[in-house]
């Protein structure tokens, strides 16, 4: 189901058919000034509501933090993985203070920079307050920053959407009334997603990793090249998988933001040219010259320079920090090596722990390669197909790496779910959305139950929990596939609309 455009010359009306959204068409003409005043008031109301919801989510987090023991969320395997657990960070910090390598004993597997920043906070205790309070506050601040940055990204995307719609002749006036404020929606989805709240209160370092990824995307979208490079380098340093975001960020910086395929713009322009004057042969070579968007090599080179600079800084700092304890080799072996070789087989919400617990040693390397190439081989085809929508491509890459990474947690899901909310305008007709919502809800409720049955009561076994994890992976895969197909359907619908538009105009 696409959306039906009724080209009305007098007033603009953007009537979206579909189950989700319905706008009352304004039939009566009002004065432009009052319309503008109404728009400003609407905007004010909307931003007020947004801030109210945002602040209430922060208050909610603070209330949850004040509970003793963080509601035992930091011990849940869905929330804290060997890479993101705060207890392991505290252990690594203690080891460092005891003049031993922070990676000794195979507890801590994260970045030494994170250790220097968060480590002292895990030790400081304020009287009468729950332990790790300062760390919780840091994560709350990280969540707030991520939400603000998402709002910024969303605003840009919304503007770009409106601009593209106008260029394609789908939206006549300058009022973006039908376009949903995807920035606000994405920020609120991020703040109120139970997964995010649970990762924040459960003291996993996912909020900081998510912040780095969102920072990279924000920098790319607002064309702040050093910021994008910084975000990308920090995100890759903290967890290996955001390295795949290099491709979408380079496309954003080179070609620009998400837009419908170029062909549609060219068709519009060719029709306009036909409208304005009689078609002559001399027009055609012009068309051929401009069939491709210019790729901004300078910006991309600038970006790569900044990436190299930041990575050099980070590596020098890490080498300095780990000087006595093995240096960079040790760090790479224990962080990236740990991620890639899946040494820790404690249960989590992913599927690899069960598999590698039963695979023979002889085949272990083979299967490691298979599972990691599983992510890698999807990058190029998706990039080719979705190169006109690089933000969406970034979302897809993040979703795939959340499903197929070595130690997934709900913090990763919270990131890609909020990035999905950035594309509500295009993905409004996604199929199976209710089914997926119920699936996610069911899985997240059943997961602690199965874990309890297996570990604490002993009436279940590992298959219960693993079945849950498989179900979760299936739902995530269906989600990704459906969003990609919804996006492609949106593009096809746009194409059809434009064709019918021009067909009508011609006739």
């Amino acid at each position, binding site marked *: 189901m696409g959306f039906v455009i009724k080209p009305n010359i007098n007033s603009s009306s953007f009537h979206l058919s579909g189950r989700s959204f319905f706008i009352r068409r304004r039939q009566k003409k009002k004065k432009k000034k009052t319309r503008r005043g109404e728009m400003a008031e609407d905007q004010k109301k909307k931003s007020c509501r947004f801030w109210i919801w945002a602040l209430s989510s922060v208050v909610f987090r603070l209330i949850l933090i004040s509970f003793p023991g963080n509601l035992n969320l930091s011990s849940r395997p869905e929330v804290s993985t060997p890479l993101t657990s705060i207890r392991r960070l505290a252990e690594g910090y203690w080891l460092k203070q005891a003049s031993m*390598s922070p990676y000794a004993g195979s507890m801590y597997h994260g970045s030494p920079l994170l250790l*220097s*920043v968060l480590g002292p906070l895990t030790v400081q205790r304020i009287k009468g307050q729950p332990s790790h309070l300062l760390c919780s506050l840091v994560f709350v601040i990280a969540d707030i920053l991520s939400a603000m940055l998402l709002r910024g990204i969303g605003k840009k995307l919304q503007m770009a959407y409106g601009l593209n719609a106008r260029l394609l002749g789908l939206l006549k006036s300058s009022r973006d009334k039908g376009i949903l404020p995807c920035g606000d929606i994405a920020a609120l989805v991020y703040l109120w997603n139970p997964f995010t709240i649970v990762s924040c209160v459960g003291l996993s370092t996912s909020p900081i990793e998510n912040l780095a990824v969102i920072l990279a995307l924000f*920098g790319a979208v607002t064309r702040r090249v050093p910021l994008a490079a910084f975000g990308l380098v920090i995100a890759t340093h903290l967890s290996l998988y955001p390295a795949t975001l290099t491709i979408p960020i380079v496309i954003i910086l080179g070609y620009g933001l998400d837009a419908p395929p170029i062909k549609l713009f060219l068709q519009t322009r060719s029709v306009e040219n036909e409208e304005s004057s009689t078609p002559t042969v001399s027009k055609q070579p012009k068309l051929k010259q401009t069939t491709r968007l210019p790729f901004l090599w300078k910006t991309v080179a600038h970006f790569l320079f900044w990436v190299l600079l930041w990575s050099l800084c980070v590596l020098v700092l890490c080498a*300095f*920090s780990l*000087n*006595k304890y093995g240096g960079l080799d040790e760090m790479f072996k224990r962080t990236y090596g740990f991620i890639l070789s899946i040494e820790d087989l404690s249960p989590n919400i992913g599927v690899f722990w069960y598999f590698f617990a039963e695979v023979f040693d002889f085949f272990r390397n083979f299967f490691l390669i298979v599972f990691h190439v599983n992510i890698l081989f999807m990058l190029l085809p998706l990039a080719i197909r979705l190169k006109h929508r690089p933000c969406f491509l970034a979302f897809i890459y993040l979703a795939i790496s959340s499903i197929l990474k070595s130690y997934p947690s709900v913090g990763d899901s919270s990131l890609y779910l909020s990035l999905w909310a950035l594309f509500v305008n295009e993905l409004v007709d996604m199929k199976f959305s209710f089914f997926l919502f119920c699936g996610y809800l069911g899985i997240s409720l059943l997961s602690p139950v199965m874990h309890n049955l297996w570990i604490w009561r002993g009436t279940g076994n590992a298959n219960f929990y693993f079945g849950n994890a498989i179900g979760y992976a299936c739902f995530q895969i269906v989600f990704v596939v459906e969003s990609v197909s919804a996006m492609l359907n949106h593009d096809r619908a746009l194409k059809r609309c434009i064709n019918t538009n021009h067909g009508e105009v011609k006739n």
Partner: protein
Amino acid sequence: MKILILVMLLCSSFAFSSGDTTIHTNNWAVLVCTSRFWFNYRHMANTLSLYRTVKRLGIPDERIILMLADDMACNARNEYPAQVFNNENHKLNLYGDNVEVDYRGYEVTVENFLRVLTGRHENAVPRSKRLLSDEGSHILLYMTGHGGDEFLKFQDAEELQSHDLADAVKQMKEKRRFKELMIMVDTCQAATLFNQLQSPGVLAIGSSLKGENSYSHHLDSDIGVSVVDRFTYYTLAFFERLNIYDNASLNSLFRSYDPRQLMSTAYYRTDLYQRHLVEVPVTNFFGSVMETIHTDSAYEAFSSRISDSKINSDMPFNQPSEQDLKEELQNANIPSDKLKTEKEKCPYTQMRTDFNEKLEKFENVDTVVNLSIAVMVVVVIVSSSLLR
């Protein structure tokens, strides 16, 4: 330089085969009751009391060889079935839940006793019946029963003579089965039993001299027999005041025996024992309190550098065994080789090593890293606001 000192130590450890360079690593106890029959109730009560004391002070069952005739607790004449007391107040049941007897009944023979001491068993003898001591062990050997001039009666059928015992101890010394051995004998004319001992590192105490008898302490009118011997009674009285953390010395134990109360002279022999009794805590033999040595290199990850620097400082204090020395030699060899090959390289690596050494001296790495991260963040903000 380091290697020379290590080699010297190695040679010295080979030269000193007298156990001077070994460290005390574990404690064993061999408790033998050599009598049977109901009227020898007190001998079994002696042994079980000492078993309980030794367990209480820390020696586990795996390190205790208990040899009893074990016919008291379930004897038809026992008014208190499955209970053995060493006092008429019946406060303490010695035959409680966790008494592990290794040799019982007719297995308590001189042959088995000597096999236990020397370690020469048949193949099929299980580990729980073997004395698996090594050169770092302190062994307590307690024997009680009926004895006489240079002999000890075993189960009313055979006897162990003093030269048999001395011979067994000499074999143990040859095979390095103990670091120090303490023999405590509670029989009549006990001191004669260790007349023939010659091996160094042996301390022996007996409850009576030649020509003296050792007497029982008191008669329990309920059970009908004497329940404990005097020597053992006063030994237990000494130990009941102790817990695992006390460091009362052997000297205080030996001084606590009053000849008037014992009605015999508790004679001890220290000519074969080098250390002063004042310095030796009783838990060296009667309990198991081990000296812990704290090392910093707890984890394997990258500890070779730390152990390298520790070799120099630890050598005067610790006298490691051969295996440790060999490992340290290997560790010491590897970094020295690395240094040699590095120096042969170009001056760039020389500069880098100098830089690294300078960095190593830097104390507060943390604050520098935090400052740099803050600087990085500031640069990001500034550059992103300027460059668009």
